[in-house]
């Protein structure tokens, strides 16, 4: 089953050519092939199917987001990628090796090429910053001198060398996550799994951590997989996104494409979280269904792609009407405008009809909400 293709086909193809990103096998860093994961019944609890019919490929060297609500199957997905759990059916290929088929020392060796960062950092409280970074290297059996050199390198990479002898209890959340990132990169992994890594941080710290991740991706070429429930994280960093809901992939593709034309309800709800699609209360409370003489018609226009910023000017100029901007929110996702405008135009029926036809000609989806005096 390929959800993405069927959804892509239902998009207005001429206006927004769907960028189908079916990664060819050799370009994939992580590939799920017909994966499902069912946890057996245990102590009276029924069995739980956490993931079902999962098929996707995550491209090498890119930043890919996996977004879903809690319970969507994100944690299971992470544990399948890093080999902590085995799929019930199907295969999980990481960096060309079938991690779902490995065990023992072969699995441990493969796990060293997968770095992980966590929501709660998971640093050892008994070790200093430098010693925490050294942990995966000790596990991998590196000689002491090489560990010391590598740790210094990593402390510089995440810009936290002045905290090398501090214990985690003496560090802020952002500093702890930098240590976490340095630790994850210690063994030079080819892929970095970020499991809600910014969910416990404030917005400003989140931004700085995302910057660190973007730098790492650019400079080291590490493939990054962002597992998150935060739309803003995916929007800032990821090129492609996989939307999970109830254990299934419901949409996947380029971030701009998916979020300018969300097909699935869950994707739409993620989008409205950042856009705040609702009409302001001060406006909606004054809305009337009947046009009173001299009233303005209120029209809501969805902006998905381009031209939203110039719309008011064009309406006023090309239709020679007085278009007022009542409320607006336009964001940029992957270089595409996404948002909505609420316009006030003269309430005369003929004018409203001209405006609506102008909007539909230019492929804006619009609706008349009512009238305000």
């Amino acid at each position, binding site marked *: 089953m390929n959800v993405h293709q069927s959804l892509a086909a239902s998009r207005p193809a001429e206006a927004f050519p769907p960028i189908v990103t079916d990664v060819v096998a050799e370009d994939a860093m992580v590939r799920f092939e017909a994966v499902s994961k069912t946890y057996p019944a245990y102590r009276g609890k029924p069995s739980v199917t956490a993931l079902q019919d999962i098929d996707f490929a995550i491209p090498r060297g890119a930043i890919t987001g996996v977004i879903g609500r809690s319970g969507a199957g994100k944690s299971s997905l992470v544990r399948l990628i*890093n080999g902590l759990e085995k799929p019930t059916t199907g295969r999980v290929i990481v960096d060309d090796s079938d991690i779902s088929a490995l065990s023992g020392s072969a699995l441990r060796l493969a*796990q060293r090429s997968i770095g992980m960062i966590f929501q709660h950092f998971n640093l050892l*409280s008994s070790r200093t910053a430098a010693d925490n970074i050294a942990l995966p290297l*000790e596990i991998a059996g590196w000689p002491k001198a090489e560990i010391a050199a590598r740790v210094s390198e990593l402390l510089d990479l995440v810009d936290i060398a002045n905290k090398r002898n501090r214990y*985690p209890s003496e560090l802020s959340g952002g500093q702890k996550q930098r240590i976490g990132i340095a630790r994850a990169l210690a063994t030079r992994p080819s892929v970095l799994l970020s499991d809600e890594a910014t969910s416990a941080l404030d917005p400003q710290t989140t931004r700085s951590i995302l910057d660190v991740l973007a730098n790492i991706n650019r400079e080291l070429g590490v493939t990054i997989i962002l597992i998150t429930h935060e739309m803003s994280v995916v929007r800032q960093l990821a090129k492609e996104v996989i939307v999970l809901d109830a254990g299934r992939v419901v949409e996947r593709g380029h971030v701009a494409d998916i979020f300018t034309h969300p097909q699935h309800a869950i994707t739409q709800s993620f989008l409205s979280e950042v856009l705040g699609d609702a009409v302001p209360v001060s406006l909606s409370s004054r809305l009337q269904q009947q046009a009173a003489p001299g009233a303005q018609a209120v029209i809501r226009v969805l902006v998905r792609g381009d031209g939203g910023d110039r719309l008011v000017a064009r309406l006023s100029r090309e239709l020679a009407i007085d278009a007022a901007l009542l409320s607006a929110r336009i964001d940029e996702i992957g270089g595409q405008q996404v948002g909505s405008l609420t316009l006030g135009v003269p309430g005369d029926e003929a004018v409203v009809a001209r405006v609506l036809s102008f909007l539909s000609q230019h492929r804006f989806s619009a609706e008349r909400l009512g009238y305000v005096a």
Partner: protein
Amino acid sequence: MSPELINLIIQATGESLFMVAVAASLGTLFGLPIGVFLATSRKGELFAAPAANAVLGVIVNATRSTPFIILVVAIIPFTRLVAGTSIGSGAAIVPLTIAATPFIARLVEGAIREVDAGLIETASSFGATPLQVVFKVLIPEALPGLVLSLTLAVVSLLGYSAMVGAVGGGGLGDLGIRYGYQRFMPGMMLAVVVVLIALVQTVQTAGDYLARRVNRRLRHR
């Protein structure tokens, strides 16, 4: 109190400390690995072996629920086998160790279970072997709890060591029974009690201090 009696007290204190020190060391030697195993061998855990875990749990509980004085008498043949005699401080180390081991094992299990499961998962995801997880994560992270557990074990052993005195084990308990009780010397009884209180106090204070020193979870400096 005459110098002879004071000498007796000093000698008995030395015997008690010797018994407790050896029994605590041996108890830790056996109890630590058993405790770590108990804490990591349930279903789905690091060394998952639910059957062995259950059997070991029953043995530990059985030993712990036997009153110490009964244990001492019940294992006299075993004590003779190991120590060659059942009388004196040396022999008393055998039952003390047998009582200390399951006690320490349970305390260690508790301290190890306090370690955040996320840290085990973290180390495992880096490809750590189960033994690496134990030595690089579980024991260092549980260290403050382990120190407090051992402190508690030593304090309990001081009490037990006085008890073995009642059955010819030597040490402060022996002194208290023979002089304080049987010869009715309240001064001697008082001296024994005072020395025991001082020892317990010292051990507890030292343990608390050490536990604080190794605890990096607190913001200090």
